[in-house]
């Protein structure tokens, strides 16, 4: 009747196949309700325009030789990926309340597929949004100044940041379960996390306490890394204690650490749904 795959290889194969079925289903939502996708671009676009043109002129302490637009956009990429990942938890909460998760849980599919499919969908969507942000960046004066490979690494790093945050978001969504509450809960931590960092402004202008927080915020490490990857030496010169390899290593370590904590947490919560 149906193959359920008891061997390890079989399980992995079905896990991948089931996740793809779910990812396709999740992506169809953006095809059927295009407005949802449009709104995931509007917010980062607003941030680009507001910071580039409203705050841009007032921001001091930029690394020597680096325009604010080239300082800002890498931070916007990171922020966009993190904001975008909040959709993971909201989508899961919606699926829980509609009852479709009950249907999935009654099927002989891999239990991880609902989460893997959803986070994969959000990774794809994040990639598209980041590519659009790069295009918009070029319109307002941004440009990659450190070569093609570095640009690709910057994009890859950015979507992986979003992917790791999708698992945090999934954990929150499965814990809170109510769509509106998930939305409200998410913004209470996502805003301070991305703003108290070097994503949008240099660290020098912050009060001492915030500066200490910002220095140890992984968003700072990610924003610095993406900035060095896109802008090159001028960005690196402002970080005398860092090297590009060191930044990439630290950025990756944070992503791996988040995944190692939150993938098992989210999967366990999904398994223990009642």
């Amino acid at each position, binding site marked *: 009747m*149906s193959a359920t795959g008891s061997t390890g290889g079989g399980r992995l194969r079905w896990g991948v196949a089931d996740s793809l*079925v779910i990812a396709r289903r999740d992506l169809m939502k953006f095809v059927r309700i295009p407005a949802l996708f449009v709104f995931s671009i509007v917010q980062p676009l607003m941030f680009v325009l507001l910071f580039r043109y409203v705050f841009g002129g007032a921001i001091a302490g930029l690394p020597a030789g680096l325009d604010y637009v080239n300082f800002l956009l890498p931070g916007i990429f990171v922020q966009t990926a993190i904001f975008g990942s909040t959709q993971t938890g909201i989508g899961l909460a919606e699926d829980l309340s509609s009852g479709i998760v009950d*249907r999935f849980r009654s099927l002989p*599919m891999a239990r991880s597929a609902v989460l893997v499919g959803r986070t994969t969908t959000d990774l794809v969507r994040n990639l598209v949004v980041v590519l659009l942000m790069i295009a918009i960046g070029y319109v307002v004066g941004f440009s990659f100044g450190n070569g093609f490979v570095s640009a690709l690494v910057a994009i890859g790093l950015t979507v992986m940041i979003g992917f790791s945050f999708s698992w945090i978001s999934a954990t929150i969504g499965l814990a809170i379960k109510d769509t509106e509450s998930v939305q409200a809960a998410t913004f209470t931590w996502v805003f301070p996390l991305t703003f108290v960092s070097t994503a949008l402004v240099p660290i020098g202008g912050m009060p001492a306490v915030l500066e200490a927080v910002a220095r140890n915020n992984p968003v700072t490490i990610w924003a610095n890394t993406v900035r060095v990857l896109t802008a090159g030496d001028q960005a690196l010169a402002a970080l005398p204690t860092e090297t590009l390899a060191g930044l990439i290593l630290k950025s990756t370590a944070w992503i791996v650490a988040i995944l190692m904590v939150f993938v098992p947490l989210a999967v366990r919560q999904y398994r223990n749904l009642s």
Partner: protein
Amino acid sequence: MTGPIIRAEGLAKRFGEVEALRAVDLAVEPGTVFGLLGPNGAGKTTSVRIFTTLLTPDTGRAEVAGFDVVRDAVALRGVVGLAGQSAAVDANLTGSENLEMVGRLYHLPRAEAKRRAGEVLERFGLSEAGDRPARTYSGGMRRRLDLGASLVARPKVLFLDEPTTGLDPRSRLDVWAMIRELREEGITLLLTTQYMEEADQLTDRIAVIDLGSVIAEGTADELKARIGGEVLEVAPQDRALADDVASALQGVGGEAKVDERAGRVRIPVGGDAAGVLVEAVRRLDAARIRIGDIALHRPTLDDVFLSLTGHVAEDGSVEEPAPASSGRRRRS
């Protein structure tokens, strides 16, 4: 396979303070339609969720098609279908996309999933709507799609959780016809309902469940025969006088059951039913209670339920705490 295809022994489940199920025993023979009848909060949905592996029991054990609901959960999911308030369709996918997706998740090959999706759409009268998002469907169409989704993999056992709740009368009859068809095909069905008529019309056997326990089991006729004879039903013009009616009629037949909400009194009567009717009219006249309606009828499942539990089935007031996965949906 010999013996019951669904079997439960001493199933119990507690949500915090609430005992949703206490020691439920059930046995369902292959190829039959089994009804789980009870008010909201009786434990019907909890039972279905245990049989379909969405919940694990605290104590007791259950088997479906030879698979243990805990130990063999994965294999069990391959041979059962679930529809009704416990499951749903994706509103953003079309009817055929929904069915194909479910087929693929049952691990049918792509072409086979597509073919069966077409068959199911055809069978449930959804072929024309098959390429429209389910969001645009009426309640009845959605329920048919939901039922169809549970059939894509041709399950041996189908669990229908309140399959007609919230449907208009016409759609309800459609769903009834489909359930009868499935039974003809040899699928075993377990359905939950709070409607007596539905249990009476569709099921081979019924378990009456109230406050987490099975309080009676048998065919509809067996359950009705427990009351025996006929039932005298009296409704005073002034509903508030139902208790007065009961005391005026003390001793004319069996023990009177008062449905205060509906303002009706039911009294089982054996032997000379017509004589009891005359006596009842005389006594009510003497007590100066104006009669709105008085009649003798064969016992219905309503009478059975009332005599077993002391309350009518559709008047359940105990609400189970909604299991966490789908907080806003009503449970029973």
